[in-house]
């Protein structure tokens, strides 16, 4: 690979995949060209109302990332652009782009919206999935980034040469009708394709009458109906008569798992979960109870906390799940829709619904095939990018990588993981060009506000209907006006949107505000965003306070708007009281270590280690057993039939001979201290001498893995012919005699999974059983193979295995928790399985020579280790990630990342992707020389310190020390800012900056004085 590799990466597609990849790349030292064909980034995710499994509103969790991309120095955003051609090879590509004219000068446009008001030309709004209308001059959506208007091709001036209303009224004359199409040429070291996929158009299903009745909508249209920025401003109403619906039905698998009316034979992976979510969220929009019914075939809620979400939907929210695929939807009187369906026992049932939502799947985007061709990227038989399970983000062409739904329909957490993984893969050999093309941002000088009387600005947010729909936001704003030290108040629709950020900066400068209070959502998600904004306005970022009047108020007091408004006023008064005492704090830069510690020598651990080492950073890989490989050692092939053995061997060799990886076999972690950038961990070897080594490292990756649960039922361990899936794989590889001459095999699914004790799906067992069943059938087509299941969850392209299995004659019999299969050993020691056939409702008996139990996956027990790193685990023992949707690889405490089965059961390709993602996330820290520390840390006032050692003894991280002149001293680089020493110190000598006694007492007493 030529030395002069270019330190930049081209990212095609501005959806959440492109956004996450660009942020990772830019934060780890590369210039990113983000090419987006629309006028703004955000992709399909920006059209969603709420997202599973956390019910966050999609805009609230994506807008911080949108704004970050919009303002990121190292991301060159090229909207309305498409790739024309590429040439060159890995490390040095030359890409020709066409940028279509926007007809609006981005520097002048202030997105005031007057042009859109005046523009006479109305067109269908594709952002609203065609339900609403927009003007020819438009903004893709309220929080769009870049927040600039654009004129589309239906503009009357283009068609008939007259009008130009927008130009007349534009206050900053930003309209430029002779804007021309530009040809750009850029160079990049790697290319990353994330164009996403298209939402399936169900009009070909004439039996569903999608076009006939306005009340039959696609799931994306329903998202828009639910969304506050949607065509009905968040009111859930029937498109036909704008009346609130009483009954809604969801039809699953529309445009998926169908080789008759459409040709998408795969499963689109996400529809079951979003139907669950839409039903739950829809109920919330209705005052009187809403009856929701989901018609499905297999309930594919396989991801982390997905099954729990589904159980909650059924039990707490009363969503009805009817296992029956629908033949037709008949329009009925008063715009209702009649559905006749067969119950599981075959009885005919009929129901009338106000609305029918077609859970449409994802199909390849229309211009994606062209893009792939230009790039020389091969597609698979479904028209998606062809990738191998063992290098899930690489395409057939060197230096070109793929992530997101262009590779396979997948949910957002998996997309985000792949985005980070592809970022790591893309820069695998660009490491010496790191920071070569990046720019540094000069912040305006910080105003010195010490000594100034507090002048507080209060910004109250509506957050669409989330706050404004419940609490009386203008009343809250006016109430804040006469709080002490408050000199400016205002309320806005979306405080977090980019135009509002610029507006806040302007107000701060104009009115000389030196403290800012934002009353909106949770500081956990939005505080960094606002802090950076006020820093941009010259204010120290700690002169800022948030009042959480949404998550802690309107969202939880929906039934009582007056109380919610009163409470919002209290919260604002408390925030203002604390803000009055807030002081500027300065962070100091701290040299950090370059090394990474990876714990766990399975595939995930090794891939993460290699991922980081390839980027030129030293890695310590710790494995407590005597050999590398983890579970992969027992696996035969991936679901696509790729041999895992050779891949594993090659990976182990790459780890063993990698100059930058130091391997510690049979070694355990016995202690760790320090914070992000400067951890120091003690390792103890377990082979006898138990010698200890202390290593310093900047980041930690936990890949402690999981293992197959030893089944406690179905005669496992008592009968020789009952085995688990790994036993079966071993039997195949060692051609175990139990396999020869078998005439009948039964698989039982969900053994130990999806039960009250372990209410989660282990995600891989269905695919694994299908693969084994096919192997058996290939060996002997006459063999009787049965799979006794609850739901076959062969999501995505794995559905092919399910089709092939049925084609090969495998019989699938469904059981449920109330009617478990009965396994006995007959007198002749032959196995017998009795189960009720789910179609005929009759008991059937199978006499298998072999019984394979698809046992679930449990995490490896590492309570001590997790205790050292203070990382939380959920009730089943899986590590809890920082954010289930958008930070699936990080922990909430900085500098620690996770990958593999320890996070949640997943197939090997997802573990590899998550491991590479961990590497990429780690590189956003390791790429830097130093990091900023301090801020919210404890500091000691020497005069008051009685050197009583209380702080030394209570600090959980062991940081305070007593110095020679017998005063306590706390190293601001190490202090985690928890404040335990502050509250214990008998002499009141320590104070935690930004959380001083004065501030907290002021906030507390503010609650009780005047009002509330």
């Amino acid at each position, binding site marked *: 690979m030529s030395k002069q590799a270019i330190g930049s990466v081209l990212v095609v597609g501005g959806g959440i995949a492109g956004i996450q990849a660009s942020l990772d790349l830019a934060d780890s030292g590369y210039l990113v060209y983000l090419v987006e064909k629309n006028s703004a980034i955000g992709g399909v995710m920006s059209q969603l109302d709420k997202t599973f499994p*956390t*019910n*966050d509103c999609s805009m609230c969790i994506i807008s911080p990332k949108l704004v970050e991309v919009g303002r990121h120095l190292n991301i060159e955003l090229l909207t309305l652009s498409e790739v024309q051609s590429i040439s060159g090879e890995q490390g040095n590509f030359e890409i020709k782009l066409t940028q279509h004219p926007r007809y609006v000068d981005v520097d002048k446009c202030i997105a005031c919206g007057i042009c859109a008001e005046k523009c006479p030309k109305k067109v269908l709004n594709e952002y609203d999935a065609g339900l609403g209308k927009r003007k020819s001059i438009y903004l893709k959506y309220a929080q769009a980034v870049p927040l600039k208007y654009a004129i589309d091709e239906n503009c009357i001036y283009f068609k008939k040469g007259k009008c130009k209303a927008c130009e007349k009224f534009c206050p900053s004359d930003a309209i430029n009708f002779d804007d021309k199409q530009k040809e750009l040429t850029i160079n990049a070291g790697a290319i990353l394709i994330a164009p996403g996929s298209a939402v399936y158009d169900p009009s070909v299903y004439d039996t569903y009458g999608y076009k006939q009745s306005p009340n039959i909508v696609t799931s994306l249209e329903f998202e828009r109906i639910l969304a506050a920025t949607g065509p009905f401003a968040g009111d859930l109403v029937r498109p036909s008569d704008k009346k609130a619906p009483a009954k809604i039905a969801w039809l699953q698998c529309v445009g998926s798992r169908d080789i008759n009316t459409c040709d998408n034979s795969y499963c689109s992976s996400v529809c079951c979960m979003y139907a669950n979510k839409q039903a739950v969220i829809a109920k*919330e929009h209705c005052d009187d109870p809403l009856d929701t019914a989901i018609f499905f075939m297999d309930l594919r809620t396989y991801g982390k906390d997905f099954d729990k979400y589904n159980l909650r939907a059924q039990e707490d929210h009363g969503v009805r799940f009817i296992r029956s695929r629908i033949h037709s939807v008949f329009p009925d009187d008063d715009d209702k829709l009649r559905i006749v369906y067969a119950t599981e026992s075959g009885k005919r049932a009929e129901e009338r619904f106000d609305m029918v939502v077609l859970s449409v799947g994802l199909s390849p985007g229309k211009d994606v095939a062209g893009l792939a061709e230009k790039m020389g990227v091969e597609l698979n038989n479904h028209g998606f990018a062809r990738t191998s399970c063992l290098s899930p983000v690489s395409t057939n062409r060197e230096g070109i990588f793929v992530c997101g739904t262009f590779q396979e329909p997948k949910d957002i957490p998996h997309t985000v993981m792949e985005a980070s993984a592809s970022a790591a893969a893309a820069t695998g050999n660009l490491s010496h060009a790191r920071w070569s093309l990046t720019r540094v941002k000069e912040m305006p000088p910080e105003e010195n506000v010490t000594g100034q009387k507090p002048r507080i600005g209060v910004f109250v947010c509506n957050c669409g209907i989330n706050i404004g729909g419940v609490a009386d936001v203008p009343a809250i704003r006016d109430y804040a006006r006469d709080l002490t030290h408050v000199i400016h108040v205002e309320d806005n629709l979306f405080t977090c949107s980019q135009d509002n950020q610029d507006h806040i900066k302007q107000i701060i400068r104009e009115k000389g505000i030196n403290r800012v209070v934002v009353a909106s959502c*949770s*500081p*956990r998600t939005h505080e960094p965003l606002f802090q950076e904004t006020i820093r941009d306005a010259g204010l120290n970022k700690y002169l800022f306070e948030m009042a*959480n009047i*949404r*998550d*802690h*108020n309107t*969202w*939880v*007091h*929906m*039934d*009582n708007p007056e*109380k*919610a408004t*009163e*409470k919002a006023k*209290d*919260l604002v008064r*408390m925030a203002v009281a604390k803000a009055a005492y807030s002081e500027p704090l300065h962070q100091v830069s701290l040299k950090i270590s370059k090394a990474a510690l990876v714990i766990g020598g399975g595939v995930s651990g090794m891939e993460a280690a290699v991922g980081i080492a390839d980027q030129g950073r030293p890695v310590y890989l710790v494995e407590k057993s005597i050999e590398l490989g983890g579970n992969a050692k027992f696996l035969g092939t991936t679901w696509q039939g790729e041999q895992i053995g050779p891949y594993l061997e090659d990976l182990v060799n790459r780890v063993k001979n990698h100059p930058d990886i130091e391997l510690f076999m049979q070694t355990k972690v016995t202690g760790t201290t320090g914070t992000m950038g400067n951890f120091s961990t003690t390792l103890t070897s377990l082979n006898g001498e138990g010698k200890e080594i202390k290593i310093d490292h900047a980041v930690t990756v936990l890949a402690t893995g999981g293992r197959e649960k030893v089944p406690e039922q179905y005669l496992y361990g008592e009968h020789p012919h009952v085995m688990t899936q790994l036993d079966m794989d071993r039997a195949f590889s060692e051609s175990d005699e139990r396999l020869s001459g078998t005439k009948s095999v039964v698989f039982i699914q969900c053994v130990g999974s999806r039960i009250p004790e372990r209410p989660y799906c282990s995600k891989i067992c269905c695919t694994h059983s299908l693969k084994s069943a096919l192997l058996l059938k290939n060996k002997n087509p006459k063999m009787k193979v049965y799979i006794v299941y609850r739901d076959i969850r062969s999501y995505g392209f794995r559905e092919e295995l399910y089709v092939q299995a049925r084609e090969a004659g495998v019989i699938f019999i469904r059981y449920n928790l109330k009617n478990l299969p009965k396994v006995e050993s007959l007198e002749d020691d032959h196995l017998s399985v009795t189960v009720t056939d789910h179609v005929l409702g009759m008991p059937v008996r199978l006499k298998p020579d072999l019984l394979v139990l698809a046992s679930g996956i449990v995490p490896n027990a590492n309570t001590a280790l997790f205790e050292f790193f203070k990382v*939380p685990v959920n009730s089943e023992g899986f590590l809890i990630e920082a954010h289930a949707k958008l930070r699936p690889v990080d922990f*909430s*405490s900085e500098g620690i990342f996770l990958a593999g089965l320890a996070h949640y059961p997943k197939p090997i390709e997802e573990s590899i992707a998550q491991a590479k993602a961990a590497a990429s996330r780690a590189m956003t820290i390791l790429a830097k020389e130093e990091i900023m520390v301090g801020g*919210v840390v404890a500091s000691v006032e020497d005069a008051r310190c009685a050197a009583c050692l209380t702080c030394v003894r*209570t600090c*959980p991280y062991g940081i305070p020390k007593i110095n020679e002149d017998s005063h306590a001293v706390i190293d601001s680089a190490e202090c985690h*800012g*928890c*404040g*335990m020493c*502050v*509250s*214990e110190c008998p002499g009141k000598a320590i104070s*935690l900056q930004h*959380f001083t*006694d004065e501030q*907290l*007492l002021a*906030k*507390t*007493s503010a*609650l*009780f*004085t005047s009002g*509330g």
Partner: protein
Amino acid sequence: MNETFEPQIVAYCCNYCAYAAADLAGSMRLSYPSNVKVIQVPCTGRVDILYLLRAIEDGADGIYVAG
């Protein structure tokens, strides 16, 4: 305690666990009485006994420290 009694309860919630849980309760749309006002602290260790006493002095009817 007559029914119109509206207690004022202040809740000190640690940023990582309880505050996040309160956020989650919000996103799950659970509902609870509005008498509870959350004060975010980096860790419940930060909550000095003095805060509880001062709160009671100022008229708090209940204090909730969750971490």
